[in-house]
């Protein structure tokens, strides 16, 4: 009984210690392993439209961004760097952003995207469970979401997580 009390307390401490290493605000996406929701949206600054179905057979990245999003600036150089390698297509989902602002932003900081699509009212964002821009989805050849990054992509994350995963998916 008494020993049980002490064991219970230390179990609680262990739990709290693990808790310290977690981010309580990060919500894992239930979409992982599920087909990427379909949509058809106009491309940013182009007359054509885009639907994820066009990417069948390809591994690709979908990056949710906006000109008003502060941490998008932080991840931007990483994406620009990535786009130079032309490893896989990188498509932007411009989220709740006036197109003029978005184009200006790309002109100013560089455009790493093959192209971006315009989600003006955030409706598609909801289907993808977007809640903290920027977010990045890795989608496989069969159109299934394999990985989701919430928040900026860092160089470490790119090197240690995303690139190896791309390699694996392309095999």
């Amino acid at each position, binding site marked *: 009984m008494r020993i049980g009390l002490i064991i219970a307390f230390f179990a609680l401490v262990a739990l709290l210690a693990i808790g310290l290493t977690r981010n309580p605000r990060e*919500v*894992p*996406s*239930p*979409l992982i392993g599920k087909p990427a929701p379909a949509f058809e949206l106009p491309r940013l600054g182009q007359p054509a439209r885009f639907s994820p179905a066009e990417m069948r057979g390809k591994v690709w990245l979908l990056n949710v961004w906006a000109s008003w999003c502060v941490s998008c600036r932080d991840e931007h150089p990483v994406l620009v760097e990535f786009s130079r390698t032309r490893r896989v297509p990188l498509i932007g989902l411009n989220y*709740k952003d006036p197109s003029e602002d978005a184009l200006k932003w790309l002109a100013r900081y560089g455009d790493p995207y093959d192209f971006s699509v315009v989600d003006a*009212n*955030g*409706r598609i*964002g*909801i*289907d*993808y*469970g977007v*809640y*903290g821009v920027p977010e990045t989805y890795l989608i496989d050849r069969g159109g299934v979401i394999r990985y989701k990054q919430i928040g900026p992509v860092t160089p470490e994350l790119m090197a240690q997580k995303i690139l190896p995963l791309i390699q694996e998916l392309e095999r």
Partner: protein
Amino acid sequence: MNRLLCLLAALLLPLGLQAREAPPVAADEAVEQRLVKIAEELRCLVCQNESLAASRADLALDLKREVRAMIKAGRTDAEIRDFMVKRYGDFVLYRPPLKESTLLLWLGPFALLLAGFAVLAIFVRRRRAAKATILSAEDERRADALLKGSEHP
């Protein structure tokens, strides 16, 4: 004549306004009531622990608009909750669903209550059997002595 009417209207307008009963913000109050009821049990994702109903965050407003649309489209509460869970996971539900991982959460309090009263019953039975010990009487006397200062033990 026309002028006169205009003048009359201009005079009457403020009076008319004054007597006006303020209309509800929501176009359809029944929809709004259901929305609040559903949204109170959903968690706002971008806030620090607020319900969707209470939050004024951008995403929360978007999601409420979405829920409103679903209510108007005749979806059931369960379907609407399912829509949210499919996108954001169980995290959005303030009332965690009963499943294996939440069994302890839902049954724990009642199990504890049963256990507590079981322990209580055992304890009371033992106490009933116990004779008043001399030790406690001695204890009481000593405490009284200390506090009253009438005598030292």
